[in-house]
């Protein structure tokens, strides 16, 4: 496929540039301060701040999953499913610097890929609550810190890998399905504010 110079515009329009930048910042931060221990009141013991980064990534990176140009999307000639899939792919790519950083500090690949598992979780939440996705993800972050992280990250094996990929596939699949259905539903019900209460708004001559 030939290079289309509009891809840059697409990246910017979806906020993937910002997400990639945020991914790089998170990766750098995890390398710089990953060894610091934090004592959060809600957790049963101290944790290395490194364990927070997969959850932080799930807070910050999924921004492009929320459609910021819904009226253009309604007019799209491309399949809404393909658009959603591309958005999800872009977010997964933006999360790769964090995965790489976690690998560099000694996490196993299945453990580091928990970041894309989080992205899968965030995707399904995004499709349900839009730009409020971060609220449930904040709760999921605490659950992860309380029960999911700790030193297993340095030895995690294929079971984690299966869980990560399952979260991405199931969450991402649900996101694509819900977003596609949403576009179809909007095509069915899109309207103006005035029509929904037309009798009261009508100015009779």
């Amino acid at each position: 496929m030939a290079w289309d110079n509009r891809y840059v515009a697409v990246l910017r329009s979806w906020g993937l540039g910002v997400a990639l930048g945020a991914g790089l910042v998170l990766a750098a931060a995890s390398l710089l301060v990953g060894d610091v221990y934090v004592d959060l009141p809600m957790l049963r013991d101290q944790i290395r701040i490194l364990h927070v980064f997969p959850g932080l990534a799930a807070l910050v990176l999924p921004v492009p999953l929320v459609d910021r140009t819904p009226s253009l999307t309604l007019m799209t000639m491309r399949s809404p499913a393909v658009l959603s899939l591309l958005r999800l792919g872009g977010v997964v790519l933006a999360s790769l610097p964090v995965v790489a950083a976690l690998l560099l500090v000694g996490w196993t690949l299945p453990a580091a890929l928990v970041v894309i598992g989080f992205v899968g979780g965030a995707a399904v939440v995004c499709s349900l609550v839009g730009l409020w996705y971060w609220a449930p993800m904040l709760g999921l972050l605490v659950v992860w810190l309380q029960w999911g992280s700790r030193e297993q990250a340095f030895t995690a094996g294929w079971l984690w890998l299966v869980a990560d990929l399952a979260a991405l596939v199931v969450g991402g699949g649900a996101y694509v399905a819900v977003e596609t259905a949403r576009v179809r539903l909007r095509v069915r019900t899109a309207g103006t504010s005035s029509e929904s209460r037309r009798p009261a708004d009508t100015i009779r001559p």
Partner: protein
Amino acid sequence: MSLVVDDLRCSYDRRNPPAVEIDLLDLGPGVCGLVGVNGAGKSTLLRTLAGSRRPENGRVRVDDVSLYGPDRRRVLGRIGYMPQHLDLPAEMRVSDALAYASWVRGVPPGAARARNPQLLDRVGLSRRATDRVGQLSGGMNRRLALAVALVTDPDVLLLDEPTTGLDPAQRVALRGIISDLTATAITVLSSHVMEDVAMMASRIAVLHEGRVLHIGAVDEFVTARGGPERSPEFAFLATIAGGGA
């Protein structure tokens, strides 16, 4: 080229009367002004014609292809739609907005490369190409929305309140853009400013409470209903007061 609506019914709420209820509307080439008071159903009709809102009943056909049927994509690309509010992110650059719109609307890369700068020039935004959408004035935003509607070089152009926020010079420019469209193109522009319609359209459709009360040539409409002063406003008011009779 034809745009035909038959047995159309658009409802938002079963308890209220339909927002649009049209038995048959055949829009041929040329510019048709769609007029009506606020809430008459103009925007709903335009959205439905644009393929952005599936009607509860009836069909919209472009050259005999149903806009909400299995071949929807065959005709969707031939339609350009300028909504009242185009929700572009404030931080998006003007050139990016156009590039993104052309990508989303499936314009081939080569055609987009050639056409987009011309479109920006045509709507007077060439110097603003690198500005962010949030920095544009209201009128500039409307012109950008017009450029976005034109990215596919459409055969059917649907403009919802296109003159809102435009100064007199820009209105003249808009008239120029519309007159530049090919003779076979269908243009529908909605407005509640009768003067705009009288200046830009050759035909007029009066929409009231979702129904088309009148459709015909603008000149005949004004002559027959505009009273001794041949006022477009008077003709419009007389039409909706008389229920189209």
